[in-house]
């Protein structure tokens, strides 16, 4: 008789346990109970989020591919596969290895789809760097990403990092990986064909992360000693060999299906591959290569040892596959075969330890969670802008913003990442989006990850829309057309209605914005229970977006190129400050409503920039985001180290307050520079799309000077700006 404490500690409730009894028509074995507990957890089964994930559009301009574990789009004869995933809780406990194994896991999702991983990005959130542990986390996470990513040979080409108190006690580590394959060569994560063999490949199995999946992913995380999981040490070297061996094995045509062993290793891979293939499967776990002795069957089934995969191989071709893996000094062992009764049958030396219909494992219960608008929101949304004093010294204000860790240069981070290996990186980190050429074609991909979670906190629906709009804007600034999204949805405890309200609203926001821009969401990941004893994190639906550049010669970057060029502002600045970095850093307030967003205006501005770049009229393009127009202009001046230059801005449209115009974060704005002859042509394009257009100044000189009539608001030597912006992060970290 299974005691309620037992199934409850595995994360199953009374109803779920009753359901298991109904399915099996008997008591579950320990192995079976463990299997249900992970498959029915939020992490594997999406029990609480699934109803809302349905809102997301699946189709767009480019043909989309939705696979079992990842998704992508078709670009000519190539499939571009990508996905983002979180590794928040393990990273909070052990930042280096937590982040490292996070990188390893998402890369496996990509190459098991048959695509060679060509780049990764990361989206990170930490509490304030004034706290020692947060500094330790940032250092550790970056160290883990560089340790794994550099060794495995996948360039880390971009990402984003924000700091906010809500992440103290629960940092976020989201990693996105992109891969490319010939579209005819994709692999599926399914087992089909009676009698075909099931092979285990990769590292051996130990007692790593046992129970980690359900315990870590479905309980509120508390920083207590006893819940600390057996942390795993990532092995990027083995993963690198696995990439090569897997791609070689897939090329033989003898692989029917393949799946990464991620959360709940063999349990997930066996039941999900069988279920996806409408088959059954019989494996004997006595044959699983192990590195620890006396492991219980359920321990083998639940182990989350890294760098392992399950492969369904055409009968009679097992030796060929084994030969390839052993060439790379990797295990490859037949552990079972595909059956036709729809049952996953797990044996241990011939004795049955679990026997469950595959579908009953994968068809987890789905819950409609109650939601309710948080009480504090109305109060927070009220911001009387007249009570905010305008700065006395605009120079100091700008410098302060440029040295805020969320805004300053992330060079200290990305110079630790190999962002050039594979020789595709045509735009290196440090511009709005990174650009990767597609070898053998004229095309390139642009990639970015974005989410302002403060906006999402103040207004989840609009904040999520802005995340989508900003990602698309970043791609457009690099010369690309936005093509598809992967998301990583980080929220608090879904059982609390106010948290779930944030989730629901963000989902609606992403769905509506993606539909408007005709961009599908092809893959993603949900991470709930991101809480510390002080409360939930700001809702953080990180958006990873891919764009396509049809002509690699038409790539654009954010920094000014030449002196004496015209500077144009597309879009217009509103008198708003809600949720801005300025309000937080200068006035210590997290308040107001998220910036307004008019999707049609956003589209007009993006189309104008896109057309100008495509026609070769723009020398640079940079969108306005955190810190507003003044920060954007400063970045245009300084973000190419080899060629910094000043600018003279003397024709801004100051309709109201000066601080809103300079530091407000109105959406749908892009700064373009161009030569004198092109300005008229760009104006014509803007008129055609009905996008606000204004010439605001010229490039050149040694200072960034911004004036309003005769009144000089900002006048700073470029060197000074560069110093502040470049060195802030490092000095905060080593403080």
């Amino acid at each position, binding site marked *: 008789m299974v005691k309620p404490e037992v199934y409850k500690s595995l994360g199953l409730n009374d109803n779920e346990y009753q359901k298991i009894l109904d399915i099996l028509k008997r008591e579950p074995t320990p192995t079976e109970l463990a299997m249900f507990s992970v498959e029915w957890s939020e992490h594997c089964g999406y029990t609480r989020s699934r109803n809302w994930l349905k809102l997301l559009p699946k189709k767009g301009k480019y043909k989309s591919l939705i696979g079992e574990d990842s998704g992508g789009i078709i670009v000519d004869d190539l499939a571009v596969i990508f996905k983002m995933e979180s590794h928040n809780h393990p990273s909070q406990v052990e930042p280096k290895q937590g982040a490292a194994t996070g990188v390893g896991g998402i890369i496996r999702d990509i190459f098991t789809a048959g695509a060679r991983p060509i780049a990764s990005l990361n989206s990170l959130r930490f509490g304030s760097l004034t706290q020692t542990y947060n500094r330790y986390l940032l250092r550790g996470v970056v160290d883990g990403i560089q340790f794994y990513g550099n060794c495995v040979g996948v360039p880390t080409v971009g990402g984003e990092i924000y700091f906010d108190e809500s992440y103290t006690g629960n940092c976020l580590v989201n990693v996105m990986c992109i891969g490319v394959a010939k579209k005819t060569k994709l692999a599926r994560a399914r087992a089909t064909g009676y009698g075909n063999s099931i092979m285990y490949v990769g590292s051996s199995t130990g007692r790593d992360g046992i129970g980690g999946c359900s315990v870590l992913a479905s309980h509120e995380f508390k920083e207590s000693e006893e819940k600390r999981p057996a942390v*795993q040490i990532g092995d990027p070297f083995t993963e690198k060999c696995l990439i090569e061996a897997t791609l070689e094995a897939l090329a033989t045509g003898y692989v029917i299906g393949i799946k990464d062993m991620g959360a709940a290793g063999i349990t997930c891979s066996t039941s999900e591959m069988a279920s996806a293939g409408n088959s059954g499967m019989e494996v004997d776990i006595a044959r699983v290569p192990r590195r620890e002795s006396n492991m219980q069957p359920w321990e083998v089934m639940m182990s989350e040892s890294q760098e392992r995969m399950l492969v369904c191989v055409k009968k009679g071709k097992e030796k060929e596959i084994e030969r390839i893996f052993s060439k790379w000094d990797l295990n490859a062992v037949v552990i079972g075969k595909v059956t036709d009764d729809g049952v996953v049958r797990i044996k241990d030396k011939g004795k049955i330890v679990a026997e469950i219909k595959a579908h009953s494992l994968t068809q987890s219960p789905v819950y409609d969670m109650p939601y309710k608008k948080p009480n504090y929101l109305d109060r927070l949304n009220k911001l009387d802008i007249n009570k905010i004093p305008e700065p006395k010294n605009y120079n100091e204000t700008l410098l302060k913003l440029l040295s805020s860790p969320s805004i300053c240069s992330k060079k200290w981070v990305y110079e630790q990442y190999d962002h050039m290996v594979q020789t595709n990186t045509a735009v290196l980190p440090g511009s709005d989006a990174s650009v990767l050429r597609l070898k053998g074609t004229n095309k390139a991909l642009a990639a970015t990850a974005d989410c302002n979670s403060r906006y999402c906190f103040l207004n989840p629906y609009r904040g999520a829309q802005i995340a989508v709009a900003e990602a698309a804007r970043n791609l457009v600034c690099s010369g690309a057309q936005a093509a598809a999204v992967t998301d990583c949805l980080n929220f608090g405890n879904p059982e609390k209605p106010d948290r779930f309200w944030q989730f629901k609203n963000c989902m609606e926001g992403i769905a509506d914005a993606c539909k408007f821009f005709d961009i599908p969401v092809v893959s993603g990941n949900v991470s709930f229970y991101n809480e510390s004893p002080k409360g939930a994190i700001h809702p953080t639906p990180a958006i990873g977006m891919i764009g396509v550049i049809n002509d690699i010669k038409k790539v654009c970057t954010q920094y000014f190129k030449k002196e004496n060029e015209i500077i144009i502002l597309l879009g217009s600045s509103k008198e708003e400050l809600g949720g801005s970095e300025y309000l937080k850093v200068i006035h210590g307030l997290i308040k107001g409503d998220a910036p307004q967003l008019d999707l049609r205006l956003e589209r007009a501005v993006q189309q104008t920039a896109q057309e100008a770049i495509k026609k070769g009229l723009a020398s640079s393009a940079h969108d306005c985001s955190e810190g507003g127009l003044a920060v954007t202009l400063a970045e245009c001046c300084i973000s190419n180290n080899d060629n910094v230059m000043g600018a003279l801005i003397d024709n801004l449209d100051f309709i109201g307050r000066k601080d809103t115009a300079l530091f407000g974060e109105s959406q749908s704005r892009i700064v373009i520079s161009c030569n004198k002859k092109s300005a008229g042509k760009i104006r014509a394009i803007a008129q055609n799309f009905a996008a606000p257009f204004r010439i605001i100044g010229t490039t050149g000189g040694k200072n960034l000077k911004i004036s309003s009539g005769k009144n000089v608001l900002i006048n700073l030597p470029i060197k000074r700006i560069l110093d502040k912006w470049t060195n802030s992060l490092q000095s905060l970290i080593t403080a």
Partner: protein
Amino acid sequence: MLNVEIYITLKKTVSDPQGLTIKHALESLGYQNLQEVRVGKLVTITLNSEDKKKAKQKINEMCRKLLANLIIEDYSFRIKEV
């Protein structure tokens, strides 16, 4: 002066891919009979102090605070007078 040797090793329950790879390398060089190879750190500290007892306490503290990551590592040390 005191010479302290601090040995920092991965906990037994934590896998050590580096150790495994070195084991394979040694085996392919012809060394058999290897049961296990694990890699750790050795931190040597020279202290301008004579008080062994006090040093012991200090070193314990240093290990916990900075030198070892107790989530995945164990440590031990030896103190010698020089």
